């Protein structure tokens, strides 16, 4: 999974596979982090949590 594992090769397979995997993880992670930040901001701004209504 990491280049420190001995079965790691710097080849196309690993670039594509791990590249896509880490990209996906990054997107998900960034999304979650963004949500956290936005929540913090909303909390600080003192908005009414229920004004958005439901979906």
């Amino acid at each position, binding site marked *: *999974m*990491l280049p420190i*594992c001995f*079965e790691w090769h710097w080849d196309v*397979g*690993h670039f594509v*596979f*791990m590249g896509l*995997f880490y990209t*996906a*993880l990054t*997107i*998900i992670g960034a*999304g*979650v982090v*963004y*949500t*956290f930040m*936005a*929540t913090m901001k*909303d*909390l600080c701004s003192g*908005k009414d*949590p*229920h004004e*958005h209504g*439901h*979906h």
Partner: protein
Amino acid sequence: MDDSKFWPQGVTRCKPGAFIAWMLVCLGLGGWAMLSAFLCIYKGLNQTNMNDFFAFGVWIVVDLAIIALGAGAFFTGFMTYVLRRDELKNIINAAVIIGFICYSGAILMLGIDIGQPARGWFGFWHANVHSMLTEVMFCITTYLIVLIVEFVPLVLENRQISKVPDLSFFAHNLHRIMIVFAATGTFLSFFHQGSLGGMYGVLYARPFAYRTGIVIWPWTFFLFILSAIASGPSFTTLIVMLTEKVSGRKLTSHKVKMMMGKVSAYLLSFYLVLKIADTLYWANVTLPKMGVTFGELYGGGPYGTYLVWMELGLFGVLPALLLLQRRVRESYGLLALAMVLNCCGAVMNRFVMTIQPLAIPVLPFEKFVGYLPSWQEWGISAGVIAYGLIIFSLAYRYLPIFPQEVELNKG
């Protein structure tokens, strides 16, 4: 005991007593599963009837089947958020929960299915990127994270939980960027559905499973994606219909169901064209090169050619023809029937691709052997279904997953 203050706003649910009784039934199944799981982990997989011929058994069939049927989550999400089909918002929540159940259930099962559960993470740490199974493991796990992220705001929308401002904001913010997760999920899911098919297609020393293909992807890669997205929406709709029948309440408009049916119809038809073409090519070109005939592969023991007629005819062409007709989709009953057939087709395909390649010996001097799962295997399989029932029942009771419910049940 009154739990009505936890119910979604403006709806009614069955009496707590009835609900508890229902939960006990599910937990009973769960107990069977727990005992089976304990035996399989404590005593080892000798508790199953799998063996070195049937390295995969009913568990993998169930795994593959529920992952295929759970594909409703990603494809509905894709249509809702990426293709912006807003009417599907009325069913997307149910689709997400079913997807979550299917994927988490499958991972739980796999945890018991592998001989060394404590080493499960080796597949990540020491990943062999050339293995389709590695891709499946990575994608399923990552997609499960996506599903959790999609599921969390639903939980947070519970009437009581949403009173907490932090959580409410959090849920709202997650919803806002749901398209990001839906798109990522679509990508991940698309690939692992394919990789599950690829798992069999790449077995070039197993004539029954092997398929030619394009670049590194055998045709089963694409066929599995198609059959999953063809049956997934049907399955989601069926679960909603089932919930409607059990609860006696209308949950989504029939238009939503018809739309899901239409999606299934087109995808299933497309799938069948390709699947039939693939089968013909495989039987007439791929197999003879290996010295094997189609008749030999479908000639052994209980695995006769009737399986082909069932998989492609009864559970394939028939539901496709039914679903393609507007009249059928308009009828609640016929739509349900066609969708059941469609889902059976997906399950059957996964069964045929898992069990039969292993049952048919490749060495000419080996004999055909049979396999019937042990009660422990059935127990775990039943447990996953019980797990799904519990999660979905709880979700239905306490979470506002059907936006149309209040309106449809007025008066």
